[in-house]
């Protein structure tokens, strides 16, 4: 349980970076369209995805071992 809390806390640590990312994205244009051209803090997304993946694997592994 402590490890899950730790993973959750680490994910929360990353969240401010996610929220502040992409301030200078493109705000188009004459027709009122937007155009996707984000310059987000990509590393934070990657790190969060990796942590989620690893945490999910740990959960599945533990559950598998218990069931065995």
């Amino acid at each position, binding site marked *: 349980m402590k490890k899950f809390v730790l993973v959750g806390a680490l994910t929360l640590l990353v969240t401010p970076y996610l929220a502040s990312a992409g301030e200078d994205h493109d705000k188009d244009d004459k027709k009122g369209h*937007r155009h996707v051209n984000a310059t987000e803090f990509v590393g934070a997304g990657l790190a969060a995805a990796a942590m989620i993946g690893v945490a999910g694997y740990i959960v599945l592994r533990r559950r598998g071992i218990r069931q065995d």
Partner: protein
Amino acid sequence: MRVSALFSAILGNLRVPPFPFWILLLALAAVVADQFAAPVLFSTAPLFAVLACLLLVVRHGYRPELQSANPSRLAGARVFLFLALHAVLVALVWILGDPALRASGSLTGAGWAFLFVKLCTLAPALLLLPWRDWRTLASLYTTELTAAGIVLVTFFPRRIVESLWPWYGQFLGRLVQLFSWPFVSGLGYVKALYPTLTGPSLDVTILLSCSGVNGIELFDALFALVVLCDWPRLNKRRTLIAYGIGVAAMIFGNVVRITSLVVLGNHGFADFVSRFHINAGWLFFAAIFLIFLSLTYRWMLIRIRLAPPSAA
């Protein structure tokens, strides 16, 4: 002191099979040294292939059959030849100079030929042992070598995706348009190297970075972790099938991801989509991986059948 004895002394009680271990470690060190000496040789494929093989051999552990196979000692002459061949390879790349630099990473014929040169950094390792010992190694560690081969050719698919992009980009764009069409009226398609889906309030250009290769690389890394941690108790055939299914799921998941961007972006979430689509994409890929793993994990494991309790 023999090199193998030295490694055995260092590794102590880890129960690591010394015979293939030091060969693989030497090969890995030489590939790393090549890439430091001639940075134009940099390629993750041979590095991670050897590293994967090394780690999986360590996870497999000692095979008693190795004792009876009686492998040869690591001969000094063979190590010298191995090092000399690496030095020749690096010297050749230095002599090539600018043409090598231009070819490296390009998608031309010369680029593909230079990729072959990068993979050739693995070839001198064949000199470290007699052919008989390589056959022994291959028969005892078949699955580990196969896994390394898969890592070598599929694990870092960026170059393959880049070379296929002129066709794959159009296929991806058309597929996203097909999936988005029921939800977004007036959706247009601008055919270009990087196709654009034009909607009433958001235009989405599908760049090379939207190809899904990031998702596949994330999947590769996480799947490698699973394989490494559970290697002894994995059913190897099922694991290979699951790997193929997982990569396919990531490719399809990427289509769903871009479709959701087009649909949400044209239904009042244009600002959110343009601001967060990259990080949201990473989280989406992580979610696909978790769904995939929850469906396949137990299936991949070897089932241990417990013997029925004997009657008293």
